[in-house]
């Protein structure tokens, strides 16, 4: 054999192979065995599966943990599982900043992170611990699904985990990262959590494209079936990000707005931003918008208002890529975490549709359970009417939002910005639904109806005018009628589309000027929070949610 071509090797021939020290006593042997056992979950599968994970541009569970915190995790069960290798699921307590966080993460390098009865139990114990000790939960999902050789055991595992997670829903908040390719139970379980974050190049859903193809004959890519675009648009994913690192950093960022459990307050951060900082910019923005040619019909991006009110302009928007007609965001005002639920006329005129209703309802229920005060910001002409919305079940959706609002027991403030018409006003955190404080900007237009309301308010006058117009002959009459109607429109706006009636009836506490907005809201939040004791939400289970 010619040796001009040696057999390629990746060893260093100059390195003498380190020989394992021989155990000299039974005790040493036990220690040695113990050491091997401890290493087992990290080393048992060798390099190949780790390399494969990396080829997919994915990190291992241990690498992901290190992005969340530099401190080593306290793994709850290192060897649980038949092969003593942790069976593809890590449950641990992490120290993130000043907080203890319960964490689970699939180890895709072991059996593709699949689920069996053992893993179900492991998850259940973690969830139980989190609930009892009040630890927020972070999930890092990267699982191929149920471990098929485990048979029904895998399904039982899922069921046990579902149940345990449901039991701590509303007790501790949870953030679920969707890494890799998760189908079936691997999707339902994380969606039971409070927030789902999905990076690009991942999939989750009921089934993968293969099943879709075999059952329905549909050809679809994983991305089109359950990628971040799909879930970001439906709200199944609350946040979509570019990659795993971004997901984990977003997790840490979001965590700073969340309390550890339903018995405590979200982290308070004393602020250097003066509470009485005048919000001049809002004044300028409103002036620009409302003095423009389209006047009070000019769309206004409500994010500016949230930005101006929050400490240092910093806020965190949830579901930012969908239902933008309803903005839901966490921010801090005077150091207190506040939830904002705001109509946004810059998108779809701010009308409340099915998507916006569910988005708001979900957010409100969360804030309510976790002792977070809510500022409602109203600027909408109402619910979006029409066949499409009815067929999508707007009545159900609107009802869900209304129910969520009525149920709120945390401090709740309503700020009327401009339009607050009809049903939208009635259902959006007014005094009768339980608001603690209703404030109105001078531009507020509370009315039963928009401009069309003149038909009812001036019913008699309109009848007379129309009769007269008919007598005047078709052309002349039509012109005259048009002028009269315009006059009535203006009169309606003058007389009824303003905050006066609402003030006179006690539906609004007081007018607040745009430049005072931060100061007023900040003081109100501070007052209510001084007199609020965090506690678990209790009471009768209502129908629906």
């Amino acid at each position, binding site marked *: *054999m*010619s*040796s*001009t*071509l*040696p*057999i*390629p*090797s*990746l*060893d*260093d*021939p*100059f*390195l003498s192979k380190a020989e394992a020290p021989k155990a000299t006593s039974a005790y040493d042997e036990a220690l040695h065995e113990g050491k091997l056992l401890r290493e087992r979950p990290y080393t048992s599968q060798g*390099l190949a599966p*780790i*390399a494969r994970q*990396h*080829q997919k*541009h994915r*990190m*291992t569970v241990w*690498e992901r943990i*290190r*992005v969340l915190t*530099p401190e080593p995790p306290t793994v709850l069960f290192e060897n649980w599982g038949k092969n003593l290798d942790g069976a593809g699921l890590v449950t641990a307590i992490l120290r993130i900043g000043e907080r203890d966080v319960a964490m689970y993460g699939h180890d895709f390098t072991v059996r593709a992170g699949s689920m069996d009865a053992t893993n179900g139990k492991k998850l259940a114990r973690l969830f139980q611990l989190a609930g009892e000790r009040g630890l927020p939960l972070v999930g890092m999902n990267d699982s191929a699904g149920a471990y098929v050789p485990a048979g029904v055991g895998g399904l039982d595992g899922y069921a046990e985990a579902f149940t345990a997670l449901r039991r701590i829903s509303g007790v501790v908040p949870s953030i679920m990262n969707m890494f890799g390719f998760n189908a079936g139970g691997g999707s339902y379980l994380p969606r039971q959590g409070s927030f789902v974050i999905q990076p690009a190049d991942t999939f989750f859903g009921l089934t993968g494209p293969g099943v879709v193809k075999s059952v329905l004959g549909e050809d679809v890519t994983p991305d089109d079936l359950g990628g971040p675009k799909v879930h970001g648009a439906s709200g199944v994913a609350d946040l979509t990000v*570019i*990659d*795993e*690192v*971004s997901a*984990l*950093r977003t997790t840490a*960022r979001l965590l*700073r707005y969340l309390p550890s459990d339903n018995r405590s307050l979200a982290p308070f*951060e*004393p*602020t*250097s*931003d*003066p509470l*009485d*900082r*005048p919000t*001049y*910019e809002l004044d*300028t*923005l409103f002036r620009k918008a409302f003095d423009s040619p389209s006047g009070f019909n000019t769309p206004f*991006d409500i*994010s*500016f208002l949230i*930005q*101006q009110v929050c*400490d*240092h*302009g*910093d806020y965190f928007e949830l579901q930012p890529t969908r239902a933008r007609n309803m903005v839901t965001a966490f921010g*801090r005002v005077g*150091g207190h975490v506040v939830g904002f639920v705001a109509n946004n006329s810059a998108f779809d005129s701010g009308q409340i549709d099915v998507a916006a209703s569910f988005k708001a309802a979900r957010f409100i229920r969360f804030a309510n359970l976790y002792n977070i005060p809510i500022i409602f910001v109203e600027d909408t002409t109402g619910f979006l009417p029409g066949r499409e919305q009815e067929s999508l079940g707007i009545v159900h959706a609107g009802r869900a939002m209304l129910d969520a609002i009525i149920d709120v027991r945390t401090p709740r403030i309503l700020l009327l910005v401009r339009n607050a018409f009809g049903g939208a006003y009635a259902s959006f955190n007014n005094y009768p639904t339980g608001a603690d404080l209703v404030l109105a900007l001078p531009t507020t237009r509370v009315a039963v109806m928009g401009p069309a309301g003149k038909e009812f308010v001036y019913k008699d006058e309109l009848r007379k005018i129309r009769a007269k117009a008919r007598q005047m002959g078709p052309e002349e009459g039509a012109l005259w009628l048009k002028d009269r109607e315009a006059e009535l429109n203006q009169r309606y706006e003058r007389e009824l589309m303003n905050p006066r009636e609402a003030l006179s009836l006690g539906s609004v506490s007081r007018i607040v000027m745009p430049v005072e907005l931060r100061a007023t809201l900040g003081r109100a939040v501070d007052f209510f929070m001084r007199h609020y004791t965090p506690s678990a939400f209790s009471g009768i289970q209502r129908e629906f949610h």
Partner: protein
Amino acid sequence: MDYYKHHPETTADRRLSHHPSAWARSFACEDVSPLVICRGPIRKEALDVFAEMGITHAGILLSEKDSIVYTHALAPELRRLSPEHVHRVRDYSGATKAEREERLAEIVKICKAHRYTHVFAGYGFMAEDESLARTLEDNGIVFIGPRSHVHAAAGKKDEAKRTALAESVSVTPGVDDLTTRVVLERHPSLGSLREATAALGLELPAELFEEGASLRAAAERALEASYRARVDLYSVEELIEGAKEALAALFVEHPGHRVRFKAIGGGGGKGQRILAGIRASEGIDAARAAAKAAADAVREILAEVKAGGVGDDKNIVLELNIEETRHNEIQLLGNGQWCVSLGGRDCSVQMHEQKLLEVSITEEGLESAIGRARREGRAEAAQTLEHDLATLRRMEAEAERFGLAVGLNSASTFECIVTPRGSKHFFMEVNTRIQVEHRVSELCYVLRFSNPNDPRDSFEVRSIVEAMVLLARHGERLPRPTRVPRHGAAVEARLNATDRSLAPHAGGLIRSWTDPIEHEIRDDQGISLKNPDTGVFVHYRLAGAYDSNIALLVTYGGERETSYLRLLEILRRMKLRGVDLQTNNAFHYGLVHFFVAQGVWAKPTTRFTLPYLTQVGLVAEAAEAIDLDRVFEAIERSFAERARAALGADAAPLIAAARAALQLKDTLIRRPIEALFAEPHALSAWLSHTRSAFRFEGERLVWTKNPLEVLEGTYWLLNMDHRANVPAAHVIWDHDRDVLERGLGFYRTLASRLGLGTSDWEAIEARLASEEAPDGIEEAQWERVRASHAGFQLGLEALAMLVHLGKEAGFYELRVEPDLSITIPERLLDPALQARMRKVLAPPPRTSANEIVAVSGGMFYAREAPSLPPLVEEGTRFAAGQPLYVIEVMKMFNKVSAPFAGTIDEVLVTTDGAIVQKGQPLFRVTPDETIVEETEAARKARLAESTDRLMARVLGEVR
């Protein structure tokens, strides 16, 4: 160490009131209460310096565009300024002359109401405004900047040129009195001029029009009077006619040259146009025809600098465009009695007249570079540098003369163009303000002010802003300082929101930005100032309402080389992450690698950037045509073929081992190459960086450095070298690092066993080629050594592939010569290629072929000016290249041309000034020809073909 908040070079206790010397204490500035009326990085810098000087009462103007254009753009300054020190205005300067006057009145009002004694305008649009300085002076407020008469004498391009001529400063040929000529054309006699001025109600002394008086002098006085009275002595049309005439004359006089039009109030690339001239063989008719372009140029320029209104000084300077120029400038400081130059800056690396990279040029730096070149036997380089030194000395002397002549009493910059060879220089203009790149100079020299009565009694100033405050407060009392060398060199890179082709890209959101590292001065307007409550990075929306600049990255060092290496390290480590975010970070990285590899004293001209980008585009285009899977398949196949040729049927175990090794090294080699392919500027950086690692023998690539070390360098270059506490996904994977470290360790041991250095790669390789074991290594071990060598080298042919790719794309033809000039291959100057490569680097938004979409985010206008009709309407037939609409991005009005020919079916955006997003449909159209998209199969075939061709070369299979 927090290099953002406390940089040892830029933060200091500057309170002279605490100085041990009583004389120094007399220059304390704590009673100064400044109002900052500009934005940008200088605003934060100024506030920092003021605070360090012990100034407690300082405020800022805050424009709507800074605070409320986009969400998440709350001005970062607000994170630490108390609200009562923030004063809201609509805009810093105002869009029209009337608005500007209104703003001036507002500024005075704010100063009076809030007890501001001084005003600081940074390098904003107002900084060079004579009327600002004058208004403040009239109201007893001190302007921290040159006095109004300095602006008048030095700031206006026409006046400045006259002053320069008087001071025997070298100037370029051209016309600086266009408006005077126009007035004289219209009023060829004193009588006619007198009538015209009287008709406009201008009050002028009668003797001006007396018999025998100078008509030209009268015209000049009449013009001045008309600007004060805000009436027009000439129309824009007349100006255009005059410009055409003057231009045609210049064209005839200087065939083969282009002519630059500059508004007298322009700057920073605004208000300038360059018009093409005629060939030497052509005559006056051709010149007249070419000069017609003056009409558009004049209109556009006046619109850009907002001088088109009634009573605005519309003078435009015409100047011969020196085609291949370098842009040098001298930093000046003066108090009216003395004027000191703080060395120069080379700002030749520009794009679209916007500076990108600025590096110090100082006597000391050049002297040391000359010494080094001499020692290293680079005579040609030494000679060039000596020319440069002579030029610098001349420029500094002229600048100081000029500064004294105009009574400069603050900071200004004397700008010159320098010819690339021969080092002739021409005075261009004076910027009567602090410049963006001022830090480069302050890092090179300290100003030492000494007591005239006791030279040992002195204090030092290390900041130009600080010096400006001192000059504004104590002015003529300040003795002439001496400049004391501080750092041997300093360099600044402008981090801009631009795409890979350096076109502005607004609207991105910064979600995170790595902290500054040692030696990094990051002037970023405060973006990196974390939320003071939570310590979390505050998301920042790049609104782009003013310009595309995000930050200035400044560093310094012993010699220019050190500064460049530090800049490389800063750029390498810096990472901005966000949504729809594009910056020129990678461009700078590639560019600085180019200079570091080929010589930091290389002399790029102002037209270097575009050909360089075009070359990067060619490399990117070549990379796009490579299928990496196929590359590794070819490597494996080639190995198998060689094995079979040598061993026949016995080759099987070798082939299997090779496959296993390649599999184990897959991510190790593939990942960095994928990263290079994903960022053409990183690939450019790599090609420059590895230039010294190989040579070619004919077509054959010979590594002069171990390719495994090249691979290690590639990880370093990509900032993917291992670091603790960095997400694993951002650095080399652990198992890849194991293989790499093991391999490098193996070669280290081997080299020492062979009695060689690891850098003696060719010698090591020669030994390894032999089956015979060298002395001291056993036969069996030698066999294992050779096996390991084969294993570790396997797959690194992919790195050779990159070199071949760069070579074929012509990357190495763009090179620095021994005399430091840069050879730009002719092909890179072809405008058609440049345009095509721009699209390779930044592919235009996808169009569904039946619509025209916005090329960028910005403000949409259907017409060029409010008084003009829309460029296209429903039914308009348009040709490829025809302007369709105007988009305002960062104050530049970009006319956007049709990418193809067609017919407008519907105009989708009907409001002028509407904000549009990149890719938003603007017109529904029917194209003349439908664009054919490449099918997946065709693409695959194309990639296979080009990959195979390249790999045949790489693997030496070229037949």
